């Protein structure tokens, strides 16, 4: 969901950060819309946390400007920026109980005791921690601490909420629950969320838009569907979800469609950039877009089944093409038909229309 509000919640212009000789961020420019659930996604060391800390005010910029709803903020100290942060390991004040933690920001803002009490009660209600009001953080589980951190950051009604890998310390079940909860919290409150994660599943399931980052640069910005279906380059295709990446060469080009040669086989793929015949690049095919059939059909490739791995909901199949290339495919497990996938069996692979993508870089 892209937002049409004229003033961006956060506007980054040519933002850069050097730590001595090391460039952590290079020329970052994009807008984050009001009410948006925006995710910074990338492997560790890609600069996503640095960018978040620069918006929060914990790191100074070495280049560029940051605007928050039109106000330039990059020179303000953190306590003068109307944004709040949920920290990776929560950073709850150990000597304060839940209510004191949540009320801390309000107290600093000079709210009256009555107003603080009312807002803290509201927040505690929101994160369902009623019976823990007087507990200290050390007496609570990770999931509960996470909720306190969330309530503490949201209590002062920030214009933008920054979340620094807030779910990474939780176990899988709890993490999945919290995803849904965070998403609905964002919807209900209408606060702009900027969420940092290295977990692509987390990013895909919660975000309105994702900025995929690598080596201090933004690789692609788009909706979860965009970045998954139409990756801009090899890094994005590889980082988001599973994919088959094959070295390929462009053949005949027809607008958005290009005939690709790889390892003795050829296939029609989509592309976004300008591609010239003979150009080298990468072919990306998602494993779940491959179907295994027995009969030769339109655009199908003959192959032989190699190793199969049973994964519960589906089975991963390695298919060896006649030309020597190997493609991974994922077949959903149904009660009937699993017996077809015996090693050494000859099959025909069909690529769903538009599922193969030719990437220049």
């Amino acid at each position, binding site marked *: 969901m892209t937002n049409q509000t004229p003033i961006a919640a956060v506007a980054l212009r040519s933002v850069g950060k050097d730590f001595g000789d090391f460039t952590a961020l290079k020329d970052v420019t994009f807008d984050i819309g009001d009410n948006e659930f925006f995710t910074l996604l990338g492997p560790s060391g890609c600069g996503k946390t640095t960018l978040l800390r620069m918006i929060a005010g*914990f790191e100074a910029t070495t280049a560029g400007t940051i605007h928050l709803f039109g106000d330039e903020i990059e020179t303000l100290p953190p306590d003068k920026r109307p944004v709040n*942060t949920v920290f990776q390991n929560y950073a709850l004040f150990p000597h304060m109980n839940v209510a004191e933690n949540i009320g801390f920001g309000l107290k600093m803002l000079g709210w009256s005791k009555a107003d603080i009490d009312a807002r803290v009660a509201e927040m505690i209600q929101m994160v369902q921690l009623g019976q823990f009001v007087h507990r200290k953080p050390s007496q609570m589980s990770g999931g509960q601490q996470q909720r306190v951190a969330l309530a503490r950051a949201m209590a*002062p009604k920030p214009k933008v909420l920054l979340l620094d890998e807030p779910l990474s310390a939780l176990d899988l079940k709890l993490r999945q629950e919290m995803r849904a909860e965070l998403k609905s919290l964002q919807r209900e409150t209408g606060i702009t969320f900027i969420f940092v994660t290295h977990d692509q599943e987390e990013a895909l399931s919660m975000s309105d838009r994702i900025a995929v980052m690598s080596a201090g640069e933004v690789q692609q910005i788009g909706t979860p569907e965009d970045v998954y279906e139409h990756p801009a380059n090899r890094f994005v295709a590889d980082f988001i979800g599973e994919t088959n990446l094959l070295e390929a060469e462009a053949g005949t080009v027809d607008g958005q469609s290009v005939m690709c040669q790889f390892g003795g086989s050829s296939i029609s793929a989509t592309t976004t950039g300008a591609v010239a015949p003979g150009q080298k690049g990468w072919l990306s095919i998602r494993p779940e877009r491959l179907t295994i059939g027995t009969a030769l059909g339109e655009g199908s490739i003959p192959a032989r089944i190699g190793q199969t791995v049973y994964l519960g909901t589906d089975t991963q199949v390695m298919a060896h093409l006649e030309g020597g290339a190997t493609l991974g495919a994922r077949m959903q497990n149904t009660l009937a038909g699993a017996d077809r996938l015996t090693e050494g069996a000859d099959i025909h692979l069909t690529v769903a229309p538009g599922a193969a993508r030719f990437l220049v870089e």
Partner: protein
Amino acid sequence: MAAVGGGRTVSSAFAPIRLWLLLPSWLTIGFFLLIPVLLMLVYSFLTKEFRGGVIWEFSLAAYDQFLFDRGLFGDDPPTIQWTYITIFARSIIQATIATIMCLLIGFPTAWYIATRPASSRAVWLFLVTVPYWVNLLIRTVSMKFLIRENGPMNEALLGTGILDAPLQLINTDFAVQLGLFYSYLPFMVLPIYAAVERYNFALSEAAADLYASHWTIMRSIVLPVVKPGIIAGCILVFVPSLGAFLAPDLLGGAKNFMIGSLIEEQFKGQAGNWPFGAAASMILLSMVLVVLFFYARSQAREQV
């Protein structure tokens, strides 16, 4: 607070061996620490022998002498004996001021060391402790030499024209406080360093993020979290300062007598009075124990 070692449960599987491993410690502490203190307690209730030593005869004379003045022949109506109470009060004040000085200088020092890169912290800590490889007596004498009326400090101050008359430091209360401060500074720095080193600086960021100023972060986040280290440091400085006798003797002169010197005198040479020295020690010990007891109770209450 986790920093003050709370009760830790050890698997019961280790119970039998634990008894044997702890036995040497129990015996040593019991024998060489507890028994001498008990001995002092007993001595304080005995009768004094004139050439030093005691006569094994129960007597409250030592405590009586400490608290009451019964006149030269012991038959006047008893009045409160202020001499020793004054010495005690002065000792408490001196030790308190020395502790505050150690805290004011020691906290920033410890903070600075703890916020250096991990690789250079050990060097800084070593530098802080270097002077303490020199004997305390030598250091105190050097301090006396440094601050005396025609010592190097005054000569420098006069020579550069900063002062017209020498600073009268020696034989003042301040000289004693300075001596105590110098004697025990590392005992303040080390525990605070340990606490600050464990401090999670994300807490400071979180507080700044929640609109707290630098000063507020220090006051309402950092200090409460590192408080166990500060209190440990204060106890480690205050307790030995209270009973110190080197600094008061060498730097304070006769009129700045402290408990330590008073007790020391009772056991030195023929003029001493062992039961009186023992009684003064017991009174000092009880005072320290009362303070520690209230501290421990307030900590226990905070844990809940």
